[in-house]
């Protein structure tokens, strides 16, 4: 592997400032407002169209002591939500002007409840109701929810969100999606130009800076990668699936054992960018946005689960995946319950699954290393290449 692309170094500089990154600081210094979201079912375009910077709230890229968060959220709330709360209680999210959440899983709802009841020191805390189905009735309900979110944003920040602004936001965000798709396409190669850990760093930066600036970085990165001879090798090609994951070290730990992660099914990965907003069919940009968010590559909380499984299986073929790592945060109920069914379908196709039950933020614990190494040894035996 040759030198790190310059654009990736810039992305690392952005991530280094997390959560209050330099681009967010500059935005605030110019008098701009910042609204956080946690779940990918919150439509960012509507926030951006209000002239507000949407940022994604996450926990940190290492395991945190969750003592304060445990006083507010039951410990059977997943450690992702508790890590978000812990950082808030540690005043690391004090720069926020608003928080929009989605009632997509119980952990997400409870975090928003605590915000509303105990940390409500900002103009807006709003929770979107998100249906679990994608029927026409469900779409109508979700569209009305997004309309209400738009109104709340307008009232809280005394702005007008115009259709034109939304159309521009759609273009901007679709451009990101197209570029991330292009980046992932490169990972289909025998020797991709980036590691799985680097791909996560790149997507993480999308949540932590203004979109126009991020798009410029992505353009630079793609241009650099196209010209470079950078090649990453791994003995087996893996897909990583599961609960929220922001920690590139976790993927690096698996890759250090000799594998390469070539794609993922994560809301910090493909499930963030996969589907685009239809710019042609709908007259109302808000409807176009809403339909995309409900129809997007589904989270395990959606029904029927086969929609997600079909997409994962298609991806394993496209990316020539040999094994899947199911990364499941303890008490992440949607993913934990769907995993055995997904595993069954993958095993039928000859793809082995390594299930890792863990806490949000962990990276290279001894037990994870042992399991990853044994899994890779097993996959190599299967290929007759040990």
């Amino acid at each position, binding site marked *: 592997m040759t030198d790190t692309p310059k654009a990736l170094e810039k992305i690392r500089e952005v991530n280094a400032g997390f959560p209050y990154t330099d681009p967010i600081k500059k935005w605030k210094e110019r008098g701009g407002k910042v609204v956080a979201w946690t779940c990918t079912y919150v439509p960012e375009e509507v926030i951006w169209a209000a002239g507000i910077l949407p940022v994604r709230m996450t926990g940190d890229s290492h395991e945190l002591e969750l003592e304060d968060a445990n006083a507010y959220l039951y410990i059977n709330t997943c450690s992702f939500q508790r890590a978000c709360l812990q950082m808030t209680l540690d005043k690391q999210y004090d720069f926020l002007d608003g928080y929009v959440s989605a009632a997509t899983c119980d952990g997400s709802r409870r975090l928003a409840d605590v915000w509303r009841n105990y940390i409500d020191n900002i103009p807006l805390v709003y929770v979107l109701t998100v249906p679990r189905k994608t029927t026409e009735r469900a779409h109508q309900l979700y569209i009305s929810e997004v309309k209400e979110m738009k109104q709340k944003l307008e009232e809280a920040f005394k702005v007008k969100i115009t259709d034109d602004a939304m159309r521009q936001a759609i273009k901007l965000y679709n451009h990101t999606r197209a570029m991330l798709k292009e980046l992932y396409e490169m990972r289909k190669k025998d020797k991709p130009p980036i590691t799985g850990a680097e791909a996560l760093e790149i997507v993480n930066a999308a949540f932590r800076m203004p979109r126009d600036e991020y798009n410029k970085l992505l353009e630079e990165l793609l241009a650099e990668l196209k010209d470079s001879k950078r090649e990453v090798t791994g003995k087996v090609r893996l897909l990583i699936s599961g609960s929220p994951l922001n920690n590139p070290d976790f993927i690096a730990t698996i890759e250090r054992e000799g594998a390469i992660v070539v794609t993922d099914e994560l809301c910090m990965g493909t499930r963030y960018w996969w589907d685009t907003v239809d710019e042609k069919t709908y007259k109302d940009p808000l409807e176009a946005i809403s339909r995309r968010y409900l129809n997007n590559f589904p989270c395990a909380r959606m029904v029927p689960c086969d929609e997600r499984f079909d997409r994962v299986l298609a991806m394993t073929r496209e990316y020539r995946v040999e094994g899947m790592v199911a990364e499941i945060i303890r008490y992440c109920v949607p993913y934990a319950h769907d995993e055995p069914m997904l595993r069954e379908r993958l095993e039928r196709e000859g793809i082995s699954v390594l299930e890792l039950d863990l806490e949000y933020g962990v990276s290279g614990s001894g037990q994870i290393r*042992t*399991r990853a*190494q*044994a899994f890779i*040894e*097993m996959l190599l035996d299967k290929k007759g290449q*040990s």
Partner: protein
Amino acid sequence: MLFMGIDIGSRGAKGVVIEDNQIATAFIGDTGPESVKTSEMVRDNMLAKLGMDMSKITYTMATGYGRVLVPFAAENVSEISAHAKGAHWYFPSVRTILDMGGQDCKAINVNDKGQVTKFIMNDKCAGGTGRFLELIASVLGLRLEDIGQTSLESKKNFPFNTVCAVFAKSEAISLMKKGTPKSDILAGLHDAIAVRCYNLLKRVNIEKDFTITGGIAKNQGMVAKIKEKLGMEPVLAPDPQIMGALGASLFARERYMAKQNAAPAS
């Protein structure tokens, strides 16, 4: 040619040297605070028994929790693959392995070539591991090697509904104070651990033949309980605790031979 396998576990450090497909020597000691020194101690004990120095050992591989901290090993392999390899050497017919170690339990499926086809490890918790049994032995004032036999003397299983090390320990203490026989307490605990192992095994394919490896496989009380839950007679190696080290020594031989074959003829 001689090949060495070193298994630095969380509680015990094991070593095996093989020659002509036979175990030439083996050693079991405690894992000290420094894995590097522990591995050297295991190596030196085996070399002393063989009356040899390291130059006679063709290739060495390490496994276990401290596998990356064995400075004289050429390569390392996960303990999951090592146990499968070792168990297959003893019993080519083995398809299901329960490895009961110092700090975790693993259920492993192995094929007719000794390769792992499926495995599952318990989560990070001391309940039902070697460390847990050490703790209970000390609470009851017994030697670790005696608790299995004592549990078999029980007339009445005392039911434990937890193998959480913290809760089970305090429950054992209060039962002792009430005068419950040690054998009944131990029978109950062994039963609870066996249920936990059975549930772990259910997550792989339970197929004949079945073996138990790791230090706890030497505990007859535990083996009896697992046999009862599974309804399957385990085949047991003479010393199941050295299985990982044996597997590592077999890997050392295999990797060395592969390298010889791959090297251009001179």
